[in-house]
């Protein structure tokens, strides 16, 4: 049994050395093979490797990891198709390393390799974000890498703590060193408070890159939450994240920032589901992960097409695209309905499962409110982006291959919405939820209807308008602190040799005396 992610990693090497059509073909081929491979992966363990004095398990497949792996591989294929015509060598290589390492991450069976691929994801996504055509990414990617390495270091630290207590590096629910794992996972899945890296970065990269990015990093965090932190009750944290994320999102006018905050919000749903720890909750959380990748990816693809076609990505400047980009608009509607949890779309399915898993009414109400916000902000997104009357010039039409990528995703979204059993069969799990009972349908339609009412009433407030965007963020101050200390130290070292000699002799005297004492 070979870990399917390794195919991507190996493929990346070949992509580096090929050119033109061959490379495009190869990229798609790798993704297709990867997807088939993941799909056919039997449950079990394999590929054990002795490394240093550790026993690594490079493949360990469970139903849930297979579920995650399938959506990773599927979306990877769609994203590669979508980007096929614009991408340069750097994108091909790095995105394959990125996708490959996240798929490998999902299937490894020990903490060491987990950490290994966790960091590989960070490295590859850093280079993916860093784009010289966008000078702003110099700063944002720096921020991204530092944040994620803090997480990585924290994970490493937690792994060691756990290892020293239990003596094993098996990838199971963690009991020791929890705070470190929580920090690591929290940063990876952009929990509110440490989410700052996400909107900064996803809104500033080229559009096809944000499509790839939107799917993997945070979802790997969610998967880590599921695998490692089963013992922690995080239901409330998730709900808070969901609500706060949505509130932030509502304020945004820049389309991709809006979507980015929605990632945070939707992750809140998953945290809530996984965090309560009930079977249904966990299943719902993982289903939501699956669905979220699809519709959020589709939304990023849609806004990508808009940026590609018009060169604008801010809702203030957009409007009236529904006639010029009909297919894109259709996809946008599908994805928006899905994320809002409208019946017969996939978001509905997983939200329902999560909701059935929650017993605490506070959580249920919290998610209800978040649902209203979500619906509201996507009405804003679709209306002001596509349906309001305005002439926006369209320079280029999306290519067929972009449409193919979007169409695949949209198709799966609808398929799952209509036949939720697909998800259950992949996950090999009977949730026992009656998806299409009238009570559920009504309950899920409520937030959307409420949102529609609010949208109508508060149209002027919601309408995107210029306002100052302040990133409230305390983390740079840590950097300033270190920088200040360094500045002082470097002033002390003023290049005067006799001062250096004085240091030498003083050190000698101090060490000597302290030894004698």
């Amino acid at each position, binding site marked *: 049994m070979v870990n399917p992610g390794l195919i991507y990693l190996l493929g990346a090497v070949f992509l580096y050395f090929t050119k033109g059509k061959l490379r495009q073909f190869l990229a798609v081929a790798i993704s297709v093979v990867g997807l088939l491979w993941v799909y056919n992966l039997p449950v079990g363990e394999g590929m054990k490797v002795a490394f240093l004095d550790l026993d690594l398990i490079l493949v360990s497949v469970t139903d849930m990891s297979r579920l995650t792996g399938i959506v990773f591989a599927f979306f990877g294929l769609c994203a590669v198709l979508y980007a096929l015509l614009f991408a340069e060598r750097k994108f091909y290589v790095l995105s394959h390393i990125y996708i490959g390492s996240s798929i490998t991450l999902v299937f490894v069976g020990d903490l060491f390799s987990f950490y290994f691929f966790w960091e590989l994801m960070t*490295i590859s996504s850093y280079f993916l974000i860093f784009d010289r055509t966008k000078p702003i990414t110099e700063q944002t990617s720096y921020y991204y890498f530092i944040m994620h390495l803090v997480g990585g*270091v924290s994970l490493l630290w937690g792994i060691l703590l756990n290892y020293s207590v239990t003596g094993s590096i098996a990838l199971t629910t963690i009991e020791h060193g929890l705070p470190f794992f929580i920090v690591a996972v929290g940063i990876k899945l952009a929990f509110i408070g440490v989410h700052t890296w996400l909107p900064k970065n996803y809104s500033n990269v080229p559009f096809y890159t944000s499509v790839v990015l939107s799917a993997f990093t945070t979802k790997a965090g969610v998967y880590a939450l599921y695998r490692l932190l089963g013992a922690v009750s995080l239901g409330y944290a998730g709900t808070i994240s969901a609500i706060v994320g949505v509130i932030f999102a509502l304020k945004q006018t820049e389309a991709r920032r809006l979507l980015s905050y929605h990632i945070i919000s939707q992750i809140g749903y998953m945290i809530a589901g996984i965090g309560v720890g009930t079977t249904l909750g966990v299943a719902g959380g993982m289903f939501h992960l699956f669905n979220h990748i699809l519709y959020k990816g589709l939304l990023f693809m849609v806004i990508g097409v808009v940026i590609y076609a018009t060169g604008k990505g801010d809702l203030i400047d957009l409007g009236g695209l529904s006639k010029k980009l009909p297919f894109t608009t259709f996809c946008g509607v599908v994805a928006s309905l899905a994320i809002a949890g409208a019946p017969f779309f996939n978001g509905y399915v997983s939200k329902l499962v999560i909701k059935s898993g929650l017993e605490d009414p506070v959580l249920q109400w919290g998610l209800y409110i978040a649902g209203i916000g979500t619906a509201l902000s996507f009405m804003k997104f679709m209306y002001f982006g596509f349906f309001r009357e305005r002439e926006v010039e369209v320079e280029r039409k999306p290519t067929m291959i972009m449409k193919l990528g979007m169409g695949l995703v949209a198709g799966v979204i609808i398929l799952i919405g209509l036949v939720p059993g697909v998800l259950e069969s992949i996950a090999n799990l009977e949730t026992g939820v009656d998806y299409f009972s009238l009570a559920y349908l009504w309950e899920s339609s409520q937030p959307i209807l409420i949102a529609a009412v609010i949208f109508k009433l508060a149209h002027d407030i919601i309408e995107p308008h210029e306002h100052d965007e302040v990133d409230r963020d305390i983390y740079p101050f840590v950097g300033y602190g270190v920088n200040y*200390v360094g500045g002082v130290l*470097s002033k002390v070292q003023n290049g005067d040799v006799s001062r250096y000699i004085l240091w*030498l002799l003083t*050190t000698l005297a101090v060490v000597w005396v302290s030894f004698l004492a």
Partner: protein
Amino acid sequence: MDTPVLLVVLPLLTAFSLGIIKTFSKKLVKAVTVISATVHLALIISVVREAMQSPIVYHLGDWDNLLGISLVIDSFSAMMALLVGVLSYGVIIYSLVYVDFHELKYYVLSFLLIAGVMGMSLTGDLFNLYVFFEIVSITSYALVAIKEEEASFEGAFKYLVMGMLSGTFVLLAIILTYQVTGALNFAQVAANFGDAPMLVRQTIFVFFLIGFGTKFCLVPLHAWLPDVYCGAPASFNALSSGIVIKASLYAFIRIVFLLFGMTAGIGQILIYWGVITFLVAHTLAYQQESLKRLLGYSSIAQIGYILLAIGLGTESGIIAGSYHIFNDGLMKATLFLGVGIFSYAVGASKIDDLRGLGFSMPKISFAFVIATLAIIGLPPFNGFISKWLILQAAWETEYIVAAFFIPVGSLLSLAYYLKVIKALYSRPEREIEVKPIDWKLRVPTYVLSAACLVMGIIPGLSLALIENIPKFLLDSSNYINLLLGR
């Protein structure tokens, strides 16, 4: 066989003969250089292979009952020898194109330097160690000054003053050791050292610590290093950071384990001093604009990690530390050679000068970035493995605070190395004209950076060499018996 001594004598002979060869034909000089370096590498590999089976002792002048000087090649020496061989070979090939100033003298001094480092790593005699230590120092001062720029002279002078002081303390420690033990051979010194009065032993330790510490840059004694690196040719920086500093560190480690043993007291000093060293060095490195200074501080920081690991005094600590010595040699050499190429091709010396080079010199930059990621300690590169081992070792020994700071140090180093990576791949302010780069510059850089990757994925390659080191360090009687021929 006589190969062990050839490791030292061959570069010496080459250095001596280059002057004569030059009078016959100038072209011959480079040929002789390459041939000699190749033969040297081959000899080193054969000796290291042999030493991995069983340690080698070579008595110079056949004085086998400790009357003369002996060379001892145990695992630790073998590792150092291998590092010296690989790096010096790469650097010599690199220099063929890179060096266009005082070529003849450059090679002469380089070979003397290599011989000196080799001698330091192999010798089994305290005073002989000092002699080679001084050869290394003097050739280093000279190589720093060889570019004859203002910065080179200033750097060389600072280096020389600090180096002379450190040499004085080492010499003082050695003569005191002779007085209290009546011997110079490591074996007898170690055997008799316990009888010495406490005060003298402490003094000797302090002198060795400060003397060698100045050379391998403990933090308040480090100040010369960045200044030195500014004006020196990049090829020397690679050697210096890779093997010269490491040779002093090696000598210190060997002496500490033989004479004092890694007691808890000494261990704690080394551990916490190591932590301070890397924290301060990392913070200072963040301030730098000059690439070489940045890398210089980074070298100091790596010494901190190694000291920490060695100070733990456990088997895993020593393995981790030795492995980091080896890895840091590879990584730092790659980085400095890369910087050398950047300055050769476009005259870059500051971080800002690197802007856009990632696209005009993609492969070199790629190799450079690999080494950067490795030295930050990210997987899948070798720096990650050795830092992981150090962390694990520190954890096992319950030096929690020290262990905590290791990843913090990694974070700090990320902060400044990222600046370099960022500059490499950002848009240049103006068009860059790149000089064509000869393969002699490129190949060593590629090979070393590939080694960084390979050592990270298959650490077993060099760990096999290293796993015996604790046997000779922790239990000094093994080493003593080796020298006594028992």
